[in-house]
């Protein structure tokens, strides 16, 4: 049997959870105040994921960079692969909110999308 203490990051509540995993791999989660906590605990202890937010260079835009996010959470160990993949990107203005700037970013199967519209200079 394994035990873990962790803080749920599913929402700003930040529930302190206690997780036990028995020999059969069955999870028992306490301390969570909503089902997201249990889901988070299982994911966090088996395959942790994070949504990555950063910036991508814009060419000829009113701003030099556009804020971006991965359209969904990516495996935690892939975070730096994702930002490194963004390093080589540059998109021409205008950029639309929600525009896909890179498909399957760093082989995560997740797209990179703009989180703000940027007009031309």
């Amino acid at each position, binding site marked *: 049997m394994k035990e873990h203490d*962790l*803080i*749920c*990051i599913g*929402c*700003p509540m*930040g529930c*302190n959870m206690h997780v036990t995993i028995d020999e059969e791999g069955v999870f028992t989660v306490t301390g969570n105040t909503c089902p997201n906590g249990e889901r988070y605990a299982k994911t966090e202890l088996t395959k942790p994921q*994070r*949504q*990555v*937010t*950063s*910036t991508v*260079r814009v060419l000829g835009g009113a*701003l*030099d*960079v556009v*804020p*971006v*996010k991965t359209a969904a959470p990516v495996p*935690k160990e892939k*975070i*730096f692969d994702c*930002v490194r993949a963004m390093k080589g990107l540059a998109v021409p203005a205008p950029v639309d*909110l929600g525009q896909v700037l890179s498909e399957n970013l760093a082989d995560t199967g997740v797209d990179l999308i703009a*989180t*703000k*519209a940027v007009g031309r200079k």
Partner: protein
Amino acid sequence: MKTQIVIIGGGPAGLAAAVSARKAGAEKVLILERSGELGGILNQCIHNGFGLHRFKEELTGPEYAARFIQMAKEAGVEAMTNTTVISVSPDRSVTAMSREKGVFTVEAGAVILAMGCRERPRGALRIPGLRPAGIYSAGTAQKFVNVLGRMPGKRVVILGSGDIGLIMARRMTLEGAKVLAVAELMPYSGGLKRNIVQCLDDYGIPLLLSHTVVDIRGKERVEGVTVARVDDKLKPIPGTEIEYDCDTLLLSCGLIPENELSYDLGCELSPVTSGPRVNERLETSIPGVFACGNVLHVHDLVDYVSEEAEAAGAAAAAFVLQGELPAGEPLRLVAASGVRYTVPSTIDPGRMGETQTVRFRVGNVYKDCRVAVYLGEERLRYIKKRIVTPGEMEQVILKKSELSGKTGELRFAIEG
């Protein structure tokens, strides 16, 4: 110029107040925004985590702002950007300036203050040492990195574990800087727990509680800082110094509501929040002048800013459409043991809505405690809490039925 409602500030508070005022029947609602775009500080908060309460999904700052900007547009809210308000008079005439119009005055039926807040600077923290380049408030660094695409440093120490500092620890790391440590004067963090996990723990950045910066080195650019442990009186303990070689010190040591206009206008301000004192309709001591968002008190989540601002917008609309409602004897809200302040400061049971949200912050970390609310001797609430912390805002919702016809003090306390 004349309008029904002028809203000063087009950030999350101003936008939500404007939309709500229109929905409540105000026909002419005008936002005056000093920067070039609406959305306020959300435009530089490009991380996710906004909107979980409001939209039941996780948005970034610019996305959250975009939704409200769209709503304001659809609601027919007028907005003037690049327009700085210079003064507000008690008869609610608002003087502003812009490139196109020069100096101009808008006569308003009601005014909503939504100017937001600012960061506490180094001077207020009295950090000793030299004054080289490379010392920034976390929000300044955020603007450089997220809006201008430029890095303000390579090796970073952060003083203060406020949310912007924690967020910037991650942002700087993801953009290629090395964040050496976050030092926090208090024995607890001023930020949200999820930010400590996601922004520090994920990247192996140490959080040094009960530590502060005792020296800054470097003549032209920061070359290093010295961090030391503090005792329970928050005084540095000699012999506990840790030297960091770094080129940057970020400060995330608290936010202060930006109340120059309110101060000049003569609004009564709370010494605890630095924001105006307001009644149940979020109206300041000046009739017809309302306040919401971080100019009123610093919030933890933008979702609550929107909610509060909607209440202010509706109240301002009611004020212009129906005039001042007859006032009764208000209940005075008292922040007792463990509670630092409450918003509002007074509730008039005769004028309140069916429910009244009271927001407050605590002054310390309390575990397994109760949030207690008393009306005179009568205990109205006794809410069990696993933990309350200064970094997170608390709220209690009171019902008209339990306050109606009552007078005296409403006391808020942390117990047990």
